[in-house]
């Protein structure tokens, strides 16, 4: 099924040259090549059925129709060598350390602004800058406890950071489930490899959450706060609650009394000490933020402010993963850590800067333009694929509100063989991928080995988001 495999000229994860696999992929290629299409197809179906039956689905909202879908799973694993991973891991630890220092600085001394490393107007103009957090000491000075950082690989094989997700990153449940399913349907593939385990993630997450428990709680009650079963990531919320053995609560389960947070149980009210909230700041507390939110807990911010409940991630971390702030993360690393960034950013033009904006407007056909306040692949212009009208529309938008846009050269994501089924005929074709590792900041920083590899399953597509037809792969980091 590899006969007509096309390297297409971008960085290919498996092949160095046509027919010549990179050494760490050779055993896997060997096994895959020995399979016939039927037995591969059977395994694929087995995996799909497992996902549907277990309810591992996400919900897509479009035209008011809510559709439950599985996240397509591509059976060819992505393999990362220990040496490569070492660089990624060190780079991510460095980055999250700087981002946490940045959040603390922004909400306290603002040295990075007074020293004009970052233009204060960028912060004060950011929607996610939460003035309520100014001067509030968060437990243990940690703001971003759980981070998902998106990495891509350019034509040169170099890993670049595409964006940080420091609010409520999702996807980790797929990483864990992908591994389970992979072991079930393709146990033989593991024979030739020493793959680093990821199964301790829930335990590490629980420890990260316990670490920030308020002092009064000897045996803290920790819960996940979910928007509810209609949220697209509900499966993940419920999965993590089960894995950690903690409660999964909705806003309506909680109430605030005398600045403590309680959950309503059959035996009356029980105090809650730590909330892993999977709800954006805006919806957290209708008293402090959006008053029309039905999902949050009125008075939660007061309990938080008094130190009676801890939140992960902290309120206000959106200021660090703002796309308009992203270009400055390397500067943050230099400023706070006095180190050179280990993982580079993708070069980025900030439309708020006059020179950058001019360049962007003149080169729209060669750039990817992103709205800084959107995520999930919405509010984006892929310049080279867009029509003239679309480009003109975006030019207008940029002129109206330059701060809301950044632009990047089109990163030719690396490709990886994926099993593609066209009219029942199965073969391997190269599809673009990215990588989202998950980083926990608690007592120490722990990077989960691997992460979520997302695949753009449409031929030639560079958009890997699940809402835009992306799938995922099991991701292996090798022991050595």
């Amino acid at each position, binding site marked *: 099924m590899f006969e007509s495999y096309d390297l297409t000229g971008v960085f290919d994860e498996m092949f160095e040259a046509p027919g010549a696999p990179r050494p760490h992929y050779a055993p896997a290629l060997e096994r895959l090549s020995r399979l016939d299409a039927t037995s591969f197809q059977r395994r694929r179906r087995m995996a799909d059925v497992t996902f*549907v*039956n*277990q*309810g591992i689905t996400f919900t897509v909202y479009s035209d008011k129709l809510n559709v439950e879908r599985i996240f397509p799973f591509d059976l060819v694993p992505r393999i990362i060598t220990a040496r490569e991973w070492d660089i990624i891991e060190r780079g991510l630890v460095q980055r999250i350390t700087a981002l946490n220092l940045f959040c603390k600085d922004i909400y306290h001394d603002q040295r990075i602004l007074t020293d004009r490393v970052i233009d204060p107007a960028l912060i004060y103009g950011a929607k996610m800058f939460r003035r309520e957090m100014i001067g509030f000491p968060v437990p243990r000075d940690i703001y971003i406890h759980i981070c998902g950082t998106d990495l891509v690989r350019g034509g040169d094989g170099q890993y670049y950071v595409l964006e940080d997700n420091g609010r409520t990153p999702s996807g980790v449940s797929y990483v864990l489930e992908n591994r389970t399913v992979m072991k079930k349907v393709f146990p033989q593939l593991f024979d030739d490899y020493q793959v680093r385990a990821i199964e301790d993630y829930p*335990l590490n997450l*629980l*420890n990260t959450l*316990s*670490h920030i428990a308020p002092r009064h709680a000897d*045996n803290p009650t920790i819960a996940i706060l979910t928007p*509810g*079963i209609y949220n697209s990531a*509900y*499966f993940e919320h*419920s*999965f993590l*609650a*089960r894995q950690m*053995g903690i*409660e*999964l*609560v*909705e806003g*309506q*389960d909680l109430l605030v009394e005398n600045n403590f947070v309680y*959950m*309503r*149980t*059959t*035996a*009356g*009210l*029980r105090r809650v000490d730590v909330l892993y909230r999977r709800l954006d700041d805006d919806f957290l507390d209708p008293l402090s933020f959006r008053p029309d939110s039905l999902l949050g807990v009125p008075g939660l911010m007061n309990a938080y402010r008094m130190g009676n409940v801890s939140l992960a991630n902290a309120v206000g971390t959106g200021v660090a993963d703002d796309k308009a702030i992203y270009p400055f993360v390397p500067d943050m690393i230099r400023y706070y850590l006095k180190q050179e960034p280990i993982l580079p950013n993708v070069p980025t033009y900030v439309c708020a800067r006059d020179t950058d904006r001019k360049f962007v407007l003149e080169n729209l056909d060669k750039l990817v333009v992103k709205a800084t306040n959107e995520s999930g692949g919405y509010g984006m212009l892929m310049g080279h694929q867009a029509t003239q009208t679309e480009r003109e529309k975006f030019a207008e938008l940029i002129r109206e509100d330059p701060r809301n846009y950044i632009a990047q050269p089109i990163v030719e994501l690396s490709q990886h063989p994926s099993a593609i089924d066209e009219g029942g005929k199965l073969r391997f074709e190269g599809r673009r991928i990215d990588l989202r590792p998950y980083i926990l900041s608690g007592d120490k920083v722990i990077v989960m080995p691997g992460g979520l590899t997302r695949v753009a399953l449409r031929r030639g597509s560079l958009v890997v988001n699940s809402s835009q037809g992306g799938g995922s792969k099991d991701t292996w980091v090798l022991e050595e």
Partner: protein
Amino acid sequence: MDLMIPTEESALRRPLLSRVADSLYWMSRYVERAEHVARGLRITTNLLMDVGDLPDELYDRQWLSLLSLVGATLPDSPGDVGSRVTRTLSFDAGCNGSLVSSIANARENARAVRSEISAEMWETINAAYWTIRSDEARQKFEEQPEEFYTSIINVSMLFQGQTEETLPQSQRWMFVRLAKALERIDMTCRIVQARLDAFEEVEDALDAPLRTIQWMSTIRMCCGIEAYRRRFMADFDPLKVAGFIILEETFPRSIRFNVSEALDAISRIRKLTTPETIDPAERVLGRLDADLDYADLSEIARVGFREYLKSVQSRVHEAGVLVQQTYFLK
């Protein structure tokens, strides 16, 4: 910080969110409800094959009585009464209590407490949900309706077995058990009332074999034909039937059996939550339990089958309301 391994004691005492208790309770009721509706449909389909030629009015009445199980009305759609009723009670998502809506509601509730139930329970209800919405289900319904209804009954049986075998016997399990028992009592009362509606007024017009068939199918709908035969053989005396359905101590579908199940569940819930208080639902169920323990057939004969069931139903209903007030509306 080291992780605490929960001891058995603390696992039992682990708090249960009111919303979760509410969802577990309704999940269980919807599953049980689907089973009863499916059985009602299966038995009626079967019954009408057995009785041969009936006057149209009587024939339709058999079908229409089924609608009262879930308080539905006959839809304004083409076709004969039988197919309109079976279609509505099977696939009409807008009809509260139809198979498709009970399964969907059960799944919706199960999804909301996915982290509180076992993978086996979830997968059963989730698979049932996708199945009943599939084209295959429709096809099976058209071609082999009995098999279709049986598959729904089996979902419930499987689900309840899995609940017994996989859920720790904590509050969660008690709420599932309590709900199952309360729903079973309520549905049993409804079934008997519906059956009486279907043939009581015209009973004099029925000949003896037909009458027997009617009573037999009533017991069948309560899933008790084999147990009944073992006890009374082929004697389908209405009073015996009533006594069996209401009072049979060892029969897991009898009202008495389920009242004592519900009582046991609620008193264990109370002991795990607020041991020092008296639970109002427990009081209602306790009294009903005692009444049933000391009831005798002549009493039922005096009040009348229908009236007696009505009073049981309303007391169980009251217990249900009290459970909600005490545990779900905190």
